[in-house]
């Protein structure tokens, strides 16, 4: 079928044609940017943390009044930690447990820089997690090289001073950043503002840092385990329950801790302030804003597509109504129903293609603006193509019902009125 008569017919409906074109263009621009954002968020949310996340829980506990600055206070705290850990590890619901300052995705970030020589400038930043010989087993993190900490390597530390562990375990990501030739194992590095070296004795396959959102994208996998016992009145216990016993452990673990020290505080709060959280809850809270954004964008895209379809149905129906006589004449002159159907589909295609071309330019423009405003990446071509295909199909689908009605116009209409 020739496109020429369609274009001359559209000249008589300039306003409507321009409006549909504009609408398709705007919809395409917004929808492919939304799709890109949604898939970006889905990819982010579904990144594995490197932990075996099932059967894992974390408890926050505080007991003020034991001053870690004095020797007596430290001794009291050490005894309290040892008592807690022994009680936890002997619980029937518990497979293993350790004490720490933070956990991946817990939103409590302790970070320092590492450098290769005492007089060098600061190198890559890393989150550090205070650990002992039970940490790897509790978290289910896999070593790709080297060994675990030994009990005798773990030392106590209170307060915020310089970090000077003799040995450390780092992620492969961080090891490769420090030593690009892959020979990190056995090498020495230095934490911020110390001249005491730490030797890398193990390399983990993968372990996420404490923030879901990292200031620098590269930092997300820069985690370091340090063999340090946090001697502080405020601390975390990370517990792996026996398989399937997570719900039971979430009750028995705080009960056991209260039995050790009835005056301690395990917060009752909700969300991030809850004292006992399963890792599934921690993960959900860490990605809540990302998920909300993705869902909002999904709704906006869906509404946009429906609205655009509604517009096409409305205007096409109007055009069909306006042209009943002309359709009747064509039918009387021998055009088949299929010809009429095809005419309206082709007309829609012509308008949609123009809209898609303009929309592609708009989409790229909008993306460039969003890159400067919202730390977004550049829009990959497949999203534009997908958006264009969706809109072309939507147009064809929306025009189907009005076109079908047009094809049912009887040739008799040619003789009516006028």
């Amino acid at each position, binding site marked *: 079928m020739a496109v020429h008569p369609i274009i001359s017919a559209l000249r008589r409906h300039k306003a409507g044609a321009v409006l549909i074109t504009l*609408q398709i263009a705007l*919809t395409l621009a917004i929808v492919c940017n939304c799709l890109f954002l949604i898939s970006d968020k889905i990819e982010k949310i579904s990144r594995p943390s490197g932990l075996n996340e099932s059967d894992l829980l974390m408890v926050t506990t505080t007991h003020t009044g034991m001053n870690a600055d004095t020797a007596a206070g430290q001794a009291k705290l050490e005894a309290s930690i040892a008592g807690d850990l022994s009680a936890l590890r002997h619980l029937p619901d518990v497979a293993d447990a350790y004490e720490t300052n933070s956990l991946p995705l817990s939103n409590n970030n302790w970070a320092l820089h590492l450098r290769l020589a005492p007089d060098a400038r600061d190198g890559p930043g890393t989150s550090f997690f205070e650990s002992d010989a039970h940490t790897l087993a509790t978290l289910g993190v896999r070593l790709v090289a080297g060994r675990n900490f030994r009990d005798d390597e773990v030392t106590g530390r209170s307060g915020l001073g310089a970090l000077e562990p003799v040995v450390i375990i780092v992620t492969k990501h961080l090891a490769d950043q420090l030593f690009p030739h892959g020979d990190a194992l056995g090498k020495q590095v230095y934490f911020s503002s110390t001249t005491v070296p730490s030797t890398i004795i193990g390399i983990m396959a993968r372990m996420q840092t404490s923030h879901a959102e990292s200031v620098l994208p590269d930092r997300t996998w820069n985690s370091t385990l340090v063999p340090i016992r946090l001697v502080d009145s405020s601390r975390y216990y990370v517990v792996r329950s026996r398989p399937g016993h997570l719900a039971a452990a979430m009750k028995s673990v705080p009960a056991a801790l209260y039995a050790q020290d009835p005056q301690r505080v395990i917060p009752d709060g909700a969300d991030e302030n809850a004292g006992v959280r399963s890792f599934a809850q921690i993960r959900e809270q860490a990605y809540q804003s990302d998920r909300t954004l993705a869902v*909002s964008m999904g709704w906006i895209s869906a509404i946009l597509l429906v609205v655009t379809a509604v517009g096409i149905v409305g205007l096409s129906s*109007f055009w069909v109504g306006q042209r009943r006589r002309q359709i009747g004449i064509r039918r009387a002159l021998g055009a088949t129903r299929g010809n009429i159907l095809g005419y309206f589909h082709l007309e829609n295609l012509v308008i949609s293609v123009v809209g898609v071309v303009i929309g592609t330019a708009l989409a790229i423009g909008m993306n460039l603006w969003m890159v400067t405003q*919202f730390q977004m990446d550049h829009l990959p071509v497949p999203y534009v193509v997908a958006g264009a295909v969706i809109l072309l199909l939507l147009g064809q689908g929306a025009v189907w019902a009005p076109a079908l009605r047009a094809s049912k116009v009887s040739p008799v209409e040619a003789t009516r009125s006028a």
Partner: protein
Amino acid sequence: MFAYYFQLGLHSLRRHPVLTGLVIITIAFGVGSSMTAYSLYRGMSGDPIPWKSSRLYFPQVDGWGPQARNGGSEPADALDYIDAAALLHAHRAPLQSAIYGIAPTVYPDDPSQKSIATPGHAVSSEFFPMADTPFLFGTGWSTADDENRARVLVISKHLNQRLFGGANSVGKSIHLNDDSYRIVGVLNDWHPQPRFYDLATNDAFGPADELFLPFATAIDAQMATTGNFGCGNKLPAPGFTGTLNSDCIWISYMVELDSAAQVRTYRDYLDGYAHAQQTSGRFAWPPNNRLRDLPVFMDFEQVVPSETKGVVVVAFCLLLVCMVNAVGLLLAKFLSRSGEIGVRRAMGASRMAIAAQFGMESAAIGLVGGALGLVLTCVGTMRIRGALPSQVANLIRVDPSLLLETLLLAIAATVLAGFYPTWRAARVTPALQLKMD
């Protein structure tokens, strides 16, 4: 006259039920989604203390120098203890306070009750007049209490309810950490959101503070901060004294300055202070201070995340598409009544009269679309509240002003979308239409 057109408009809604329904749905969805996004933005960006936000200032002193700034020029947003103590001691503003988050444990007298870590802030006595806190009983503490590191505190209405059943507890004592503290004041309901006095080191949205202690007292009791703690070039020596003597930042600082002259004077004081630090050798760089008022500081601290702003932009783009859609549908609806227009024109109706009639018809459609939009806004805000953390979800309120704005936006959007179709309708020539029919 307009009342008659409005009636005509409402009457003609029934004339093309499908087209009219589509316009209404389009407007309702456009308005519903943009108002849902806007309600979130409005909740997060609201001025927590509108009557004096432009008189509250947040000084920043560059205690880290260029090396820690990584090429940027912005000094850190909080102060270390040395600078905070020096600013407090100099007392150059009419009112000022050093501020940091604490969570001491409240030990109940009844041993069968659980002890509870209770969030609050360590502040100076001038904090209360500065923040215009409402008192239920008693008052804040005196400057003498600041200086003497008195074991006094102000508690929230909620904590007073829990500990004393809501009775006047001024003069009574409670057990915090290792010490006994005397209550001097009980606040009435007070939960400013965002928490404007500690944007630098804590989340802007969170649970209400339950207690306030004198800053010097909290330092004396070695209470650690519950907020962000960042160090520049050197880590602190171990122990609380090490923290106090370090360049690590963890203290928010707020001053009230009532005139441009006071702002200028305070700026000069800050520059003079930083210059003195440079002369004494503590800072190896020239003064690099900031003094932002609350609205500017809220923007600087990104109280409303850029992603939330992005959602609002996209939602209003959706409204734009809906309006384009409404233009097309209204055009179809109005022009399909060319015959009627022709008759009215032939009977003497002026173009203005036709324009007024169809303008009112747009407004009528907008009103119905707005009513449906209200329902969608309510559904949308309910859904988005369920998807947000509770402290942010509580900021979203569907109140009369939001409902009114929704209706007005719907009517404005529809009338605007109706301009071109109305103009086309008014141009219909009487003779041609009569001949056609």
